[in-house]
């Protein structure tokens, strides 16, 4: 079974705080993705990474940054959280023995910024 672990299920932060969302995979998968999900907007890609220290912007990177220092861990960083970043954040992986077309998701982190 593919295991994608997101460090927190629920987070409450204050405006202006720096927020770290962690995603860890248990296999040797190259590609990792961060999405946010909002009602009526579907899943929107924030950033993705196809290798250690490699990253590419997705469709909505503004206000976010990422870090991938080790293959198994991909972090999403909100430098200064704002209320419009209240959302469900989802990490996904693909690649390796999974092939590159099917993404497998973590359970998600529900972030509320007050």
């Amino acid at each position, binding site marked *: 079974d593919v295991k994608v672990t997101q460090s927190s299920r629920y987070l409450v932060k204050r405006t202006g705080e720096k927020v770290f969302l962690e995603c860890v995979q248990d296999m040797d998968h190259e590609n990792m993705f961060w999405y946010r999900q909002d009602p*009526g907007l*579907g899943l929107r890609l924030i950033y993705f990474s*196809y290798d250690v220290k490699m990253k590419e912007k997705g469709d909505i990177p503004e206000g976010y940054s990422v870090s991938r220092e080790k293959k198994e861990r991909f972090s999403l960083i909100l430098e200064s959280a704002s209320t419009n970043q209240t959302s469900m954040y989802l990490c*996904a992986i693909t690649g390796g023995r999974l092939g*590159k077309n099917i*993404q*497998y*998701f*973590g359970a*998600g982190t529900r972030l509320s910024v007050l």
Partner: protein
Amino acid sequence: DQQVKQNSPSLSVQEGRISILNCDYTNSMFDYFLWYKKYPAEGPTFLISISSIKDKNEDGRFTVFLNKSAKHLSLHIVPSQPGDSAVYFCAATSGSSNTGKLIFGQGTTLQVKP
């Protein structure tokens, strides 16, 4: 520019009947399509996929149909069960992409009534 569209935000069907969820795309480079199911407070789970070389793929109660000329795909669930109540996302990708990047639709909320 929404390359993958699910024009019905919601669908309600009676248990035992057929559920049909629709998805349209605009990018003719897409050649692999997927459906995901998402329960509240959980990550999306992969349901079924189809390659553009096929027009139908079946897995138990779930069948995906692809009409390339119309750039349209649909997911049929027969018979529908209350446990199928969830948000369904269609997604598309191009085989020429090395990163496995998916483009998601906005989602359709399916309610199956007992």
